[in-house]
C-alpha cells in the first residue's frame, strides 16, 4: 500500500472512533474527498515543481499511536525554552502531555483543540473560525482537516495582552515509530489582543516521521501576532507546515521561520487581508547542509488599500542542500497604495548546494509600491581575507560572515530567549564560536 491508500483506509477507522472528531463530521467528510481526488502533490504541479514527495509517499507511516509515552522533562528539556516564563502545549506522538504542559483559562484560553471541540462554551468560536481560512482545495490541508482531532487552541479575548509567550511543541518518539502527525491549530486574537507564540516539532527517534501541520490564525482589528517557528528537527523528519492568517484592519502579523533541520521541510505561509491598513511581516533564516531540503512558499493577498507587507528571507546552503523560495504577492485592483517588499538572499557554501528562488507578483492595482529582489552568491573572498588578516581562522571567518549575513533577520526577534537560542543554533551549525552574544 502506498501512503495515500494507508491514509484512506485509516480514515475509515478514525471516522468510526468516538472522539472530538465527531464534532466535525461534515468538514472532515468533504476534506477526505478532496484528498482522495487529488492525492499527494506531485512535481507536475507548478507549486510543487521542485519539491518531490515521492520518497515520502513510498514510506510506511501509521496514523494511530500504539503506546502511551511518558517523557521525563530531563529528556526533552533542551527543546523547551527554559529561561523565560511561558505557557506550554506539549504533544507526544500526537497525544497531549499534561505533565510537560502549562495551559490556562485565566483571561486567555491556551488549551487543546480537542477540549475546545467538545465543550459547549467554545462552540461559537469553533463555528465562526474553524476551517474558515484554510485552503479547502489544497490536498494536504484537506488531509489534515480530515484527520482533525487535536492541536493547540488559543483564544485571546478583546484587549488582552498575553504577557507570557506560548510554546507549542510536538515530540515524536521511538515508542511509536513512523508516525504521521497531523496537528491542527486554531488561534484567534480578538480586537487589540496581543500574543507571542513559539512553535516547534522535534523528533526523538531515528525513524522517519511525517508531520502535516495546519494552523489557522485570525487577527481581528488592531491585534498583534508575533509567531516564531523553530524548525530544527532531525534528518529523518519531514514537515509540511501550512499556516493561514486572516487579518483585519490595523492588525500586524509577524512570522519568523528558522529552518535548520529536517530532511524535507515545506512551509506554506499565507496572509489574507480582509480589510485596509494591515501589516504583514514574514522573515526567515534557512541554514541547511547534507541532503536537507527546505521550501518556503509565501503568499500575501493584498485585497484592500493602504496595507504593507515585508518579506526578508535569508538562505545558507552547504554541501548538497537544496532550497526553494517562492514568494507570491497578489495586489487586487482595490488595494491601492499597497507597499509590498520582498527580499530573498542566498549563499551557496558549496558547489553542489542549490536554491530555486522566484518572486511571483500579480498586481492589478496601479498605485502600488512593490519591490522584490533575490541574490545568490558565495561568501565574499575579500571579506574572508580581511577577517583572516586579523587573525580569525578561515572556518571562524566563514562562520562570522554567514552569521553577519543572517543577522538582520535576528534583530527583529522580540523574545530574547529565542534570539539567544537561534544565535547559538547558528553558531553550532556553522561549527564556530561566534565570540559574542547578540
Amino acid at each position: 500500500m502506498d501512503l495515500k491508500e494507508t491514509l484512506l483506509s485509516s480514515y475509515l477507522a478514525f471516522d468510526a472512533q468516538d472522539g472530538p472528531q465527531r464534532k466535525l463530521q461534515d468538514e472532515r467528510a468533504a476534506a477526505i474527498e478532496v484528498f482522495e481526488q487529488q492525492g499527494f502533490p506531485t512535481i507536475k504541479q507548478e507549486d510543487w515543481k521542485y519539491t518531490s514527495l515521492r520518497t515520502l509517499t513510498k514510506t510506511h507511516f501509521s496514523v494511530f499511536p500504539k503506546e502511551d509515552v511518558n517523557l521525563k522533562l530531563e529528556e526533552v528539556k533542551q527543546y523547551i525554552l527554559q529561561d523565560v516564563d511561558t505557557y506550554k502545549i506539549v504533544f507526544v506522538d500526537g497525544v497531549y502531555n499534561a505533565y510537560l504542559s502549562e495551559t490556562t483559562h485565566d483571561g486567555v484560553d491556551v488549551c487543546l483543540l480537542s477540549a475546545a471541540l467538545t465543550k459547549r462554551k467554545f462552540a461559537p468560536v469553533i463555528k465562526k473560525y474553524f476551517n474558515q481560512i484554510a485552503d479547502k482545495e489544497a490536498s494536504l490541508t484537506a488531509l489534515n482537516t480530515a484527520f482533525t482531532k487535536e492541536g493547540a487552541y488559543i483564544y485571546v479575548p478583546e484587549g488582552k495582552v498575553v504577557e507570557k509567550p506560548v510554546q507549542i511543541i510536538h515530540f515524536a518518539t521511538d515508542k511509536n515509530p513512523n508516525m504521521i502527525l497531523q496537528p491542527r491549530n486554531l488561534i484567534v486574537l480578538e480586537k487589540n489582543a496581543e500574543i507571542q507564540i513559539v512553535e516547534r516539532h522535534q523528533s526523538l527517534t531515528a525513524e522517519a516521521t511525517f508531520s502535516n501541520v495546519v494552523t489557522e490564525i485570525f487577527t481581528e482589528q488592531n491585534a498583534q501576532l508575533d509567531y516564531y517557528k523553530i524548525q530544527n528537527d532531525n534528518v529523518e523528519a519531514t514537515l509540511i507546515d501550512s499556516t493561514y492568517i486572516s487579518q483585519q484592519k490595523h492588525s500586524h502579523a509577524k512570522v519568523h521561520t528558522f529552518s535548520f533541520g529536517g530532511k524535507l521541510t515545506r512551509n506554506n505561509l499565507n496572509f489574507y487581508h480582509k480589510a485596509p491598513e494591515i501589516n504583514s511581516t514574514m522573515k526567515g533564516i534557512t541554514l541547511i547542509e547534507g541532503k536537507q531540503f527546505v521550501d518556503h512558499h509565501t503568499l500575501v493577498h493584498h485585497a484592500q488599500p493602504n496595507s504593507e507587507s515585508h518579506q526578508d528571507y535569508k538562505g545558507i546552503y552547504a554541501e548538497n542542500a537544496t532550497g526553494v523560495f517562492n514568494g507570491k504577492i497578489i495586489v487586487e485592483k482595490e488595494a491601492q497604495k499597497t507597499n509590498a517588499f520582498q527580499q530573498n538572499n542566498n549563499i551557496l557554501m558549496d558547489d553542489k548546494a542549490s536554491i530555486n528562488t522566484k518572486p511571483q507578483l500579480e498586481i492589478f492595482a496601479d498605485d502600488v509600491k512593490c519591490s522584490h529582489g533575490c541574490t545568490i552568491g558565495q561568501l565574499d573572498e575579500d571579506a574572508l581575507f580581511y577577517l583572516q588578516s586579523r587573525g580569525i581562522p578561515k572556518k571562524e571567518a566563514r562562520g562570522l560572515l554567514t552569521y553577519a549575513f543572517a543577522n538582520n533577520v535576528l534583530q527583529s526577534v522580540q523574545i530574547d530567549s529565542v534570539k539567544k537560542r537561534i544565535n547559538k543554533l547558528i553558531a553550532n551549525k556553522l561549527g564556530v564560536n561566534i565570540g559574542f552574544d547578540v
Partner: protein
Amino acid sequence: MLSIDNLHAGCEGKTILQGINLDVKAGEVHAIMGPNGSGKSTLSTVIAGHEEYNVSQGSILFNGDDISELSADERAHLGIFLSFQYPVEIPGVSVTNFIKTAINQNRKAKGLDDMPANEMLKKIREKAALLEIDSRFLSRSLNEGFSGGEKKRNEIFQMAMLEPKLAILDETDSGLDIDALRIVANGVNKLKGKDNAIVVITHYQRLLDYIVPDFVHVLHEGRIVKSGTKDLALELEEKGYDWIKQGA
C-alpha cells in the same frame, strides 16, 4: 624581522611582482612609494597572505621562518598586520564584536583563554580614545557606510588593539584630513618601538612628516628601483616619478 628575497608573485597567471628584495629589521620604519599600479598593494597583500595571489619564485621570511605556506590568519598570529587600502565592509558585525573576536582568536592561537570582558572593555576604551573614536561609532557595522577617513582610522584602531610586530600601512593617509592624519600618525607612533617595524605605503610626504622613515623605497613595475633615506621622499615630492621611470 621581514626578509624578502627575489619575490615573484601575481595572480591569474599574471606576474605582478618581478623580483622584490626588501629587508626590514625590528625598530625600523620603511616607506614604499611609487606610481599607481606599480605593485604596492600587491606586495602588502602577498605579505599578509591572500590566497588569490601565488608566489612563483623567491621567499618571504618572517623572523627567519618561511611564511609563504601560512594562511593569512596564521601570519596574523605571528604579528603581521595589514591596514587595507580599501577596508572591506562587513554589514551585520559591529566594530566592537569584530575586534573582540579578532583579539580572542589571536589569544586562542597562542593557547590563551578569552580576554576577560572588563579588560577587553578597558582596552577598547583606551585605544578608541587614542584615535579619538566615538563610542557610538564602535557599535556600527564594520566599515559599512564609513567615510574614507573613518575607515582608515578604524584600521589603525584595530592595529592599536592587536599590537602587531610588523604593521604594513597601505595608503592609510588617503582620505584623511590634516587633523585625522595627525591622530592616525600619533596612533601609529605609539606602536613604534625597538621590537616593532612599520612599512608605510604612501604617495605623499605629509604622512612621513609624522611617521619618519629610516628608509624609502621606490617601486616601479613590480621592482624596487631605488632605495634611500627620508631625503628620497622629499626629492620624489618635488620631482615626481618620471625621472625614476626613465632611469629604470
